[in-house]
C-alpha cells in the first residue's frame, strides 16, 4: 500500500505545481463552458445548460484521459523518467493508480464549478441526483484515464501516440454529442456513435441531468465503462514499458481493441435495438421542452371561464411559470424567448373526449392501408397539428393503444397526449361486437381479446375491470345500447353486470364513460354513477329528471354531435365535411379521396331521414346546458366522416350552431374535459403550474368559434411545435 500512497501523493503535488494542468483542467473547460452557455442561450433552458455541462465534461474527460494520462505517460517514458522507476521493487500498478487518482482529483472541482456556475449564473437546477451525476462522471474519468494508459502502453513513440489519440479523440468529440446533438445526425452516423464509449458517457450525463434518471437507470453504461477500466488496467500493467528503447510488437497493439471490446458489443446491440438512438431522441425532446418562452400581450382564455383581455404567459421547464394579468414591464428580464402576441388569443390545448384511434374515420381504396402499424401515431400527430393536445380513446385495442400512449408520453414521438379506456365492456352480441365481424378473419380472435370485454356475471366484470386497471388504462368504457330499427338491434348489457363495471372502476377512482343510445340508457348510467354519458340519446329526448340526476351526481355530458352528422352526411351523400381546410392539411390524401369516392358512388338517402336524430341530439345538449351540466366535447372520431384531426373545432361549431355560447363550448373542450379525465391539475387551463400546453390563435374564438381553426402556434409541454415537421418524424 505504501508505494501506492507515496506515488499518489507525489502525483498530486506535481499536478498542483503544473501550470498546464491548471490550464487544461480549469481555464480551458471553463472558457468552453461560458462560450457554450452563451451560444446555446443556456439561461433560457435548463436542458440547454445540461447539454452544455455534458459537452464540457466530455471535452474535459477526453482531454484528461487521452492527454493527461496517455500523453503524459508517453512523455515521461520519452524523457527517461519512468526508467528510474524500473529498477525499484514495484510494478506499474502504483504508477497507473496514481495517474488515475490524480486525474480524478484534478477534474472533479471543475465539475463542481460547472454545476455551480450553471446554477448561480444561468438558473439551471442542480441534477435531480447530484450524487448519481458525480459518481457517473467519476466512472467516466477513471475509464478514460485508463484508456489513456492503454494508449501509452501500445504506442512506441510520441508521434504514434499523437496519431492514435487523434484517431480516438476526434470521433468521440464529434459523434458523442459533445459538440452537436446526436439526434440531428443521420441515423447511420448515430449508429456509429453507439460504438464510442464517450457516447455512453454523454447520454448518461444527459439522462441524469435532464431525464432525472439515477445511476441505476444507466447501469448499462456504467457496466461498460467499468469493464473498460478493468481490462485497460490489467492490460496496461502487463504491457507497461519503462524505457523508450523497449518497443512493443505491432501485434500487441491490438490489445487496444480488447479494451474497446465492451463497446463493440454495445454498439452491435444498440444497432440492433436502437435503444439509445431512441433515448437520445427522447432527451432531445426533453431539451426542446425546457426552453423558456414568454407569450407577451395576448388575450388569454384561461379555460375555466375567466378571460384575461391583455396578459402574458411565461413558460419555463415545460410548465406555465406565470400568468400575467397585464404584460410585464420588463419582459427581457424574464430570460425567455419572447413571442410578441398582440392581437392573438391563447387558449388551453383542446381535448377530444371521445375517439377511436384505431379506426381511420373514412375508407381507403388500398386495403393494406388499414394495417399500417404507424397509423395511430400519425393520427395523434394530426391532432396535435390541429391544436388538439389530448384525446381520450373510448374503445380501442388494449395493447396497441397502451403502446401509442407510451410513444407519446416518453417523448419518443410527438403527438397529442392519449388517454385510453382500452376495450369496451358490452354484452355478447352487443354494440360494437358487430364491427368485429367486419374485420379480416385472421384478426377476429385478437379483436375479441383486445377490443371488447364480454362479462357473463358481475364477478367476471369486476375481475376484468381489475385486470385493465393493472394493465394501466386511464378509464373504463361501458356500452348501453339496444340499437334501433334501421341501425341494427343489439343485446343490451345486463344492468347488474354494467353496475358492477362502473362501481369497480370507481373503487380506485378510475373514471368511467358510458355509451348510451336512448334516454333509458342515460338514466341507467346515471343510476350506476358513471362519470360521463357519451352520446346521450338520438332516439328520444332525455327527461329533465334524468338531467337533474346527472347534474346532482356531477356526471359529464358528451353529446358527440359530430358522429351523428357524419353518419347522416355519409348516408345522404354530403362530402362537405371533407372540404375543410385544416382537415385537408392533416388527413391522409388517399383516405380523403377514398372516402369521397365511396360517398359519391353510394346510393343516397334523403337528408331529411336523419333530421330527427340530429334534432334529438341538439335538443338534449341544449337541455343539458340549461340544466348546468358539465359539458365535454367528444367527436367519436374514427367513425365515418369524423377523421382524426381538427375534430374538436367542428364539434364546437356544431354546438354553437345548436345555441351553445362559444365560451361554454371552449370551457367544455378544455377545463371540463380535463376535469372528467381527472387531469385538471395538469392540463385544460392556463394557470401557473399546469403543463405548458396551449394554442395561439389568430382570431378570437369568443367572437367566432371557427377562429379555433386559425392556429398561429401550438405549444405542447413547453415545446413550440414545428407543425410542418410533425408528419416527417422518424418512426417511433
Amino acid at each position, binding site marked *: 500500500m505504501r508505494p501506492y500512497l507515496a506515488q499518489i501523493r507525489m502525483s498530486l*503535488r506535481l499536478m498542483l505545481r503544473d501550470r498546464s494542468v491548471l490550464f487544461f483542467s480549469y481555464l480551458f473547460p471553463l472558457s468552453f463552458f461560458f462560450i457554450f452557455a452563451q451560444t446555446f442561450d443556456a439561461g433560457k433552458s435548463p436542458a440547454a445548460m445540461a447539454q452544455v455541462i455534458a459537452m464540457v465534461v466530455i471535452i474535459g474527460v477526453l482531454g484528461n484521459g487521452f492527454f493527461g494520462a496517455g500523453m503524459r505517460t508517453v512523455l515521461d517514458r520519452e*524523457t*527517461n523518467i519512468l*526508467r*528510474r522507476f*524500473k529498477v525499484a521493487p514495484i510494478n506499474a500498478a502504483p504508477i497507473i493508480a496514481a495517474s488515475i487518482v490524480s486525474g480524478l482529483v484534478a477534474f472533479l472541482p471543475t465539475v463542481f464549478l460547472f454545476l455551480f456556475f450553471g446554477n448561480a449564473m444561468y438558473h439551471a437546477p442542480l441534477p435531480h441526483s447530484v450524487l448519481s451525476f458525480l459518481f457517473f462522471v467519476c466512472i467516466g474519468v477513471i475509464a478514460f484515464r485508463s484508456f489513456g494508459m492503454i494508449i501509452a502502453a501500445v504506442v512506441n513513440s510520441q508521434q504514434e501516440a499523437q496519431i492514435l489519440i487523434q484517431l480516438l479523440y476526434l470521433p468521440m468529440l464529434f459523434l458523442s454529442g459533445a459538440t452537436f446533438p446526436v439526434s440531428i445526425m443521420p441515423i447511420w452516423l448515430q449508429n456509429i456513435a453507439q460504438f464510442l464509449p464517450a457516447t455512453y458517457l454523454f447520454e448518461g450525463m444527459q439522462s441524469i441531468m435532464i431525464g432525472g434518471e439515477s445511476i441505476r437507470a444507466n447501469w448499462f453504461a456504467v457496466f461498460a465503462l467499468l469493464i473498460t477500466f478493468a481490462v485497460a488496467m490489467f492490460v496496461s500493467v502487463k504491457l507497461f514499458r519503462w524505457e523508450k528503447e523497449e518497443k512493443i510488437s505491432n501485434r500487441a497493439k491490438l490489445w487496444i481493441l480488447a479494451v474497446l471490446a465492451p463497446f463493440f458489443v454495445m454498439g452491435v446491440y444498440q444497432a440492433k435495438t436502437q435503444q439509445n438512438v431512441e433515448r437520445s431522441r427522447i432527451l432531445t425532446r426533453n431539451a426542446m421542452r425546457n426552453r423558456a418562452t414568454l407569450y407577451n400581450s395576448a388575450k388569454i382564455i384561461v379555460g375555466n371561464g375567466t378571460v384575461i383581455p391583455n396578459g402574458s404567459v411565461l413558460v419555463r421547464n415545460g410548465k406555465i411559470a406565470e400568468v400575467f394579468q397585464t404584460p410585464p414591464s420588463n419582459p427581457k428580464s424574464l430570460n425567455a424567448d419572447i413571442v410578441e402576441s398582440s392581437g392573438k388569443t391563447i387558449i388551453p390545448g383542446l381535448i377530444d373526449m371521445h375517439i377511436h384511434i384505431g379506426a381511420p374515420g373514412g375508407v381507403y381504396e388500398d386495403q393494406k392501408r388499414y394495417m399500417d402499424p404507424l397509423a395511430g401515431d400519425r393520427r395523434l400527430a394530426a391532432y396535435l397539428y390541429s391544436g388538439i393536445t389530448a384525446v381520450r380513446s373510448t374503445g380501442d385495442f388494449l395493447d396497441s393503444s397502451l403502446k401509442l400512449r407510451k410513444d407519446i408520453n416518453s417523448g419518443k414521438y410527438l403527438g397529442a397526449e392519449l388517454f385510453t379506456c382500452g376495450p369496451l365492456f358490452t354484452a355478447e352480441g352487443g354494440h360494437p361486437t358487430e364491427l368485429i365481424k367486419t374485420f379480416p378473419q385472421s384478426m377476429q380472435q385478437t379483436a375479441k381479446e383486445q377490443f371488447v370485454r364480454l362479462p357473463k356475471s358481475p364477478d367476471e366484470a369486476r375481475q376484468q375491470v381489475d385486470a385493465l386497471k393493472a394493465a394501466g388504462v386511464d378509464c373504463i368504457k361501458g356500452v348501453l345500447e339496444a340499437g334501433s330499427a334501421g341501425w341494427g338491434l343489439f343485446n343490451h348489457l345486463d344492468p347488474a353486470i354494467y353496475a358492477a363495471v362502473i362501481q369497480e372502476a370507481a373503487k380506485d377512482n378510475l373514471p368511467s364513460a358510458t355509451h348510451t343510445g336512448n334516454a333509458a340508457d342515460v338514466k341507467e348510467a346515471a343510476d350506476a354513477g358513471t362519470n360521463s354519458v357519451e352520446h346521450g340519446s338520438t332516439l328520444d329526448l332525455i327527461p329533465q329528471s334524468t338531467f337533474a340526476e346527472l347534474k346532482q351526481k356531477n356526471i359529464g355530458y358528451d353529446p358527440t354531435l359530430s358522429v351523428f352528422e357524419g353518419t347522416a352526411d355519409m348516408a345522404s351523400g354530403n362530402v362537405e365535411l371533407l372540404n375543410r381546410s385544416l382537415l385537408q392539411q392533416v388527413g391522409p390524401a388517399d383516405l380523403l379521396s377514398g372516402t369521397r369516392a365511396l360517398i359519391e358512388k353510394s346510393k343516397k338517402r334523403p337528408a331529411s331521414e336523419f333530421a330527427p336524430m340530429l334534432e334529438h341530439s341538439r335538443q338534449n345538449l341544449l337541455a343539458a346546458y340549461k340544466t348546468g351540466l358539465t359539458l365535454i366535447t367528444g367527436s367519436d372520431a374514427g367513425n365515418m366522416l369524423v377523421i382524426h384531426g381538427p375534430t374538436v373545432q367542428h364539434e364546437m361549431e356544431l354546438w354553437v350552431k345548436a345555441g351553445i355560447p362559444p365560451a361554454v363550448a371552449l370551457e367544455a373542450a378544455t377545463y371540463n374535459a380535463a376535469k372528467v379525465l381527472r387531469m385538471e391539475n395538469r392540463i385544460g387551463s392556463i394557470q401557473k403550474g399546469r403543463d405548458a400546453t396551449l394554442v395561439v390563435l389568430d382570431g378570437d374564438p369568443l367572437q367566432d368559434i371557427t377562429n379555433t381553426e386559425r392556429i398561429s402556434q401550438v405549444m405542447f409541454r413547453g415545446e413550440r411545435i414545428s407543425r410542418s415537421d410533425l408528419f416527417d418524424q422518424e418512426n417511433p
Partner: protein
Amino acid sequence: MTNSTAISVEDLHKSYGDFEAVRGIDLQVGTGEVFGLLGPNGAGKTTTIEILEGLRPRSSGRVSVLGFDPAVQTRQVKNRIGVCLQATNLPDKMKVHEALDLFDAFYDRHTDKDKLLSRLQLTEKKDALYKTLSGGQKQRVALALALVNEPSLLFLDEPTTGLDPQVRHEIHGLIQELREDHRSILITTHYIEEAERLCDRVAIIDAGKIIELGSPREIQQRVLGHTLVEVTTNEPMQVERLPEKLRDEKYSVCDDGRTLSMQSSEPAALIVELVKWIDQENLRLVDIHMKRPTLEDVFIELTGKRLRE
C-alpha cells in the same frame, strides 16, 4: 555460494531470437569488491547487468545475486540492490527530498535520509526543484536514490558519462567513499581511467564474452607486459646503427628521427643501453620518458577497437 560472494555468474547465455548477445559469461564479485565491466557498445554489458538486476530473463546459465536468483526472486533482489542507471530523469517539478521520500516508500530497508543528503552534499538543495539542479547535482541525486535502501550491492551504470571532468572527479570521490562502507559495487564504464582508479578488478567484455579478467595492473602486464621507453636527442639518430641486442626490440621513430620509442619488458636495462648508445653516437639526450600501457591500450590490443567510438 559463500557469504562473501555478492554476485556469482556461471555460463550465462542470452539470446534475442537468432542473435546471441551473451555467450557464456562467468564471473564472481566478492563482498566489498568494486568490480568494473568494460566493453564497447553492443558487447553484452547492459544485457548482463540487466539480467543481474532482475530486469531481464536469461536464456541459460546460473546467476546468483546476494544469494537470490534475480529471474525468480526478482523482488527480493530489487529490494536489496541499489541501481544508478545512466541518463535517467525525474519530473522537473519534483523536489530533491520528495524524490528520496518517494523512492524510500518502495523499499523495505530504509536509511537516514538527512545523513544521505549531507553525505552527497545535497542538504542545501533538498528543497530545490529537480530542473534547477546542475548536471553534477542531478547525478548525485541519482546516487542518493540508489542508496535510499541501504543496498549491500550497488550497480553503477556509466555513472559519469556526459559529465564534465571536474564533476566526474567529484563523483569518483564519492564512489571511493562508498567502497569504504564495505559495499559491493559493480560499475560499467567507458572511461578507462575510471576503471583504473576505482576498480579492484575489471572484466573486459567483447561480443558477449569475457576476454580478460583481473586487476587493472595484472591485465596490463599480462596482455602487453611491455613498457614504452621514449628518448629524444638534439640531432636525428641513425637507428640502423643501433646495437644488435637493441635492434630485436620493437621500435619506431618520429620527429625527423630525433625521437625513438621502444618497448621492453626490462625498461631499466633498456634505458641504460640506450643512453650508452646515444653517448657513443655523440648525440645529446634532450628528453627521456617511460610510459606504462593503459587499459585503453590493452583494450585496443585485445579487441582491435577503441572503447568509445
